[in-house]
């Protein structure tokens, strides 16, 4: 079963994390290591990191159908920083991976304990319906 593991941690108005170099490097190494691990376990489907919120635009069609963009977001809004799609044997395994992501090291090497959203990805119809 496939799950999407979403890291909704960015905040509007906040740019690059201002951590000491050592902590920043540890965080980067953790993320790269996690991806490698998921590839080796055969659970990795895809993963993408997204740009910082200051590059985000909110687009709506105007009356003429043309795009109207808005780039100003309220401070409190949370942004998707990145996501993983994994193919795992049980929901518990997806939660375990999410917990690993949540505990990624931050400033001072302390676990960030970020809130991570896990949702099942819809699949095709079950065999009995085919």
């Amino acid at each position: 079963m496939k799950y999407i593991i979403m890291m909704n941690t960015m905040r509007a108005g906040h740019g690059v994390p201002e951590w000491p170099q050592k902590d920043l490097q540890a965080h980067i190494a953790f993320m790269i290591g996690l991806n490698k691990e998921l590839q080796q376990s055969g659970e990795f489907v895809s993963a993408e990191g997204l740009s910082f919120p200051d590059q985000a635009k909110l687009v709506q069609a105007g009356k003429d159908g043309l795009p109207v963009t808005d780039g100003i977001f309220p401070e409190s809004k949370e942004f998707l920083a990145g996501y993983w799609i994994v193919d795992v044997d049980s929901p518990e395994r997806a939660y375990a991976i999410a917990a690993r992501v949540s505990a990624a090291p931050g400033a001072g090497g302390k676990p960030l304990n970020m809130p991570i959203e896990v949702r099942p990805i819809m699949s095709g119809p079950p065999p009995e319906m085919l």
Partner: protein
Amino acid sequence: MTNPWDATSEHLLRELAPQVLGAVSRRFRDFSSAEDAVQEAMIAAFTQWPEEGIPDNPRGWLIQVASRRLTDQVRGEIARRERETAVARETDIVVPTVEIESDMDPDDTLILLFMCCHPALTSSSAIALTLRAVGGLTTAEIANAFLVPEATMAQRISRAKQNIKASGVPFRVPSPQEHSERLPVVLHVLYLIFNEGYASSIGSHLQRLDLAREAIRLTRCAKGLLPEDAEVTGLLALMLLTDARRAARTGPDEELIPLDKQDRTLWDQAKISEGIELLTATLSKGSVGLYQLQAAIAAVHDEAARAEDTDWPQILALYELLKRVAPSPMITLNHAIAAAMVHGPSKSLELLRALDKGARLAGHYRLDAVRAHLLEMVGDHESAIKHYRIAASRTTSIPERNYLMTQAARLAGD
């Protein structure tokens, strides 16, 4: 009679792809269907040859399989039309007879290269079609290299062929005028394939096809077909001289290592020598173009045993030439770096202020990254940190973002 499949066989098969496609296209006068049929023949060969051995006449085998596919398709098409019009009559189906010639027409590969790198195509479709029709890669391999679903890539290729058909380019060697107009497009597409490979070899997509190697192979092939063209040779030299540093440009955590911090003992000396040899041969012919000059700059870097031995005055002179031959804001930016290394950073910071006003580069992360670097050189760490961070938030490359964030953190920690 067959020959065993070994490590060089895949290379042989890929070289044959454009020759077979040339022969089949000419015979059936339908490039688009011929291209699909050759793709099927290639997949058949990739499946059968490793087990059954390579046929004695591999090119003939491929032409025959592709032609059979096309013939079946033509028959099927006629049968479908007959059913639809409900005309029940015997028809003599005329399909071109296939005789296997032993001679080869190397021009076919060149025709195909010019056809696939057609100005009517977007660069993403030109790249996809070139890799399939000239490079002999399967749709699945190309899709994997660009991390898109196979169906998406198949659609991109088929739309590219529709555009070529609509533009009405005949299947023939371009006239001298067409040749000189369109060669830059061909070289640009090859350059983009190389860059894609160079950029994507970082990151966790380890199983991806080596596009940089594929670009070098195709450019080598183009050089064989156009030995007198200095820019083709220049492009090949540029690729070799850049690719030579591949092993040194990332660290254990896939972090980017800039040129001045690389372990130069990891550079591939064989590639450097070949690149320099090619470059020297073209420069002696007198003309200089965009790729030759970039190759010359890469060569100056490669020739320095230590970063501090880099001949910056020579690099600066080459950038000055480049600014005249092919002016662009990106070249102005690189020129500013070289100027800073020779004359110090203050003057270069002024040069950047001029670029702030230009529409093409204003707000581009590279401008901030270079400004941060120069500000660091003049000792204004506070502003340097600010611009490293702006650059980090604007780049769309994760390894580069990591690199720029780390630069800011390094200065902030000092």
